[in-house]
């Protein structure tokens, strides 16, 4: 077993643990922190069904962003939609036999790789070209885009420039999932790709990537507009009434 195999096995176990535990901690923390006042941005749905629909529109269509800025929306939805397809396409490395619908996704996922990188370039370009966005950008904003673009480009590279032994890659990841470590093909493109993916998994719970779980906990979006009909009281606020 090569040192590289052991290195990537360790790093992917660690990255997975950090991603899952970190996100679980953050989500539990968001869940437990009370929202003491009703603050939906109105007009807002008056019931739970409407809130679910609003949230669906927000996470699937980026409704608010669409109202806000068509450029950011276009690049944003291009990137996220493509990322979703790419992730689904990658399920074939983790399932045996491959689920039938993952087979259908394959060709879309392939082109989505280009769309994803295009979306990232668009978003990154705005960080340089639009003065207002240049002003608010931090080094980590650039680094995050670099990380994602690096993942996309190294992935596309393995598909179109220097093929890697994907049967071996699949055996490695299936092995990881069964705690039976298999050799990882020795390939520089693959090493780069996997290192960047592990890095992304590790920074996820500590970075602005928390917008993914965060949006579901945003009181301005997830609260129903019913304050006159229902009494909404946080535990710490209820304590005040006992005096």
């Amino acid at each position: 077993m090569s040192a590289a195999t052991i290195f990537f096995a360790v790093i992917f176990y660690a990255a997975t643990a950090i991603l899952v535990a970190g996100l679980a901690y953050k989500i539990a923390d968001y869940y437990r922190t009370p929202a003491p006042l009703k603050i939906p941005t109105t007009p807002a749905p008056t019931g739970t069904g409407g809130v679910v629909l609003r949230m669906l529109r927000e996470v699937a269509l980026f409704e608010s962003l669409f109202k806000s800025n068509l450029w950011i929306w276009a690049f944003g939805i291009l990137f996220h939609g493509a990322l979703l397809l790419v992730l689904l396409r990658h399920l074939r490395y983790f399932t045996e036999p491959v689920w039938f619908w993952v087979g259908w996704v394959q060709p879309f996922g392939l082109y989505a790789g280009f769309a994803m990188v295009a979306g990232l370039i668009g978003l990154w370009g705005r960080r340089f070209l639009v003065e207002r966005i240049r002003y608010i950008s931090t080094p980590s904003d650039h680094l995050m885009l670099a990380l994602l673009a690096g993942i996309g480009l190294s992935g596309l590279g393995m598909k179109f420039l220097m093929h890697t032994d994907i049967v071996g890659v699949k055996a490695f990841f299936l092995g990881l999932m069964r705690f039976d470590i298999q050799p990882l093909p020795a390939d520089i493109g693959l090493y780069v790709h996997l290192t960047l993916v592990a890095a992304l998994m590790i920074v996820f719970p500590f970075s602005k990537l928390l917008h993914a779980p965060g949006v579901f906990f945003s009181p301005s979006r997830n609260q129903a507009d019913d304050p006159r009909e229902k009494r909404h009281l946080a535990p710490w606020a209820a304590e005040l009434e006992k005096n």
Partner: protein
Amino acid sequence: MAAAEFTTPELKEFPAIPALRPDAMAESKPYVASDKINAAIGFPGELVPDWEAKAIGRLGELLKKYRSLKVYLDSCVHCGACTDKCHYFLGTSDPKNMPVARQDLLRGVYRRHFTLAGKLFPKLVGATELTREVLDDWYKYYNQCSECRRCSVFCPYGIDTAEITMAGREILDSIGYGQKYSNEIIGKVHKIGNNLGLPGPALEDTLQGLEEDVKEDTGVDVKFPMDVQGAEVLLVTPSADFFAEPHIDSLIGYAKVFHAAGVSWTLSSKASEAGNFGMFIGNYDQLRRIALRIREAALELGVKRIVVGECGHAWRVAYSFWNTLTGVGAGATDPFAIELQKQLDHRYKQPAHICEVTWDLIQQGALKFDKEANDHRIVTFHDSCNVARASRMGDAPGGQFEIPRSIIKAVANKYVEMAPGTTHEATFCCGGGGGLLTDELLELRVKGALPRMEALKQVVDRDGVNFMATICAICKAQFTKVLPYYKFNRGMVGGVHQLVSTAIKLGSND
């Protein structure tokens, strides 16, 4: 210190996003609250010696109490969608008035002290220590946000800068660095019962004077009752309605509506103020204590309905928060709220906005109007931010837009809408909301009004609009002050119930 000289921005036919002018508003800040003002409402008198530790400690407490704060500080991706949405940025070009940059003033300190990334790699993630410079930036720029929530409409995660501003001000107050205007008013509301410090006897005189004026004007005995036990309706209205122009004309409008519909109503000397500046400073305790006056007045007077006058943030507090804070509402199961909710008549919404009351009566045919009486006016409607984006009227979402417009169209013949993107949920703040309606912030207020003034100018030039109706005491006061800077007549702003008052037929409803 007199307000510095400044140039009123030019009204452009096609409004543009300005280029950044860093520190353009770095000199703009309200007066700091004095020792005496702070002491009266339980805040430290002046900046405490260990303010840095105290401020970070307070931030930590708020993060445990407010999900909004925690989620919003974590979730921003710096996408830039909000950067051109704030009226203060559009009017001043100061980049720190872009909502995301305003949030980042607090987010930087949050990252440094409460996140792993900020502790390990502060430079990388924009984390900052709470230096005196940062603290002063908080004071300046959290007092250049009117908490209007326009940015929250456009943020893909619904991040509401108002929540961040409120947290910022709450932290500042907790270390003795609060602003004079809001804190002084909060002191007055506790001591005297209203924001303007109008004592009971003066109020009674004013109301009596109003009865005489209306009698002279219309020949009808329209009453302005106060502290009437057993009245059906308790009207809680911003205290500006009692004496300021044009506010008072709306108060006359409410009284005429109640008179014409034969509804018994009363004001309360104890709760002679709908405004609640506790919200502006983000202090839950103050928000609650100020709101509790309404509960007490309602219980004492035994009223069946509670109705709120034309006031934007007051309606947010009433509609969205009163049930939580005071039990004015419905659906409670706990003894504290049930005590009051038993007393209220739940055939009506509790609390109700005066526009809901008037619109219901219009639909029932209980009010008659001479619409031609408003024919000298070509009317447009300015949606007030807190009504538009933080409350509702009626049964369906968006009622807060439709009901005031329906009333206007029922009482006036000529109505014009301002440009899309400047009304309804995308409305621009008047520039004076959120506890900024003070003279030392005049430059900010004038510049912050720019987007609204541009939209107004379009309809003035195109349609000859000469009356901008609104349902907010702060909007009315702010526009009265800033309209002349843009060469408009200050008298062109007024209330929806001012229009009602002009057109309503009294006394012969059968």
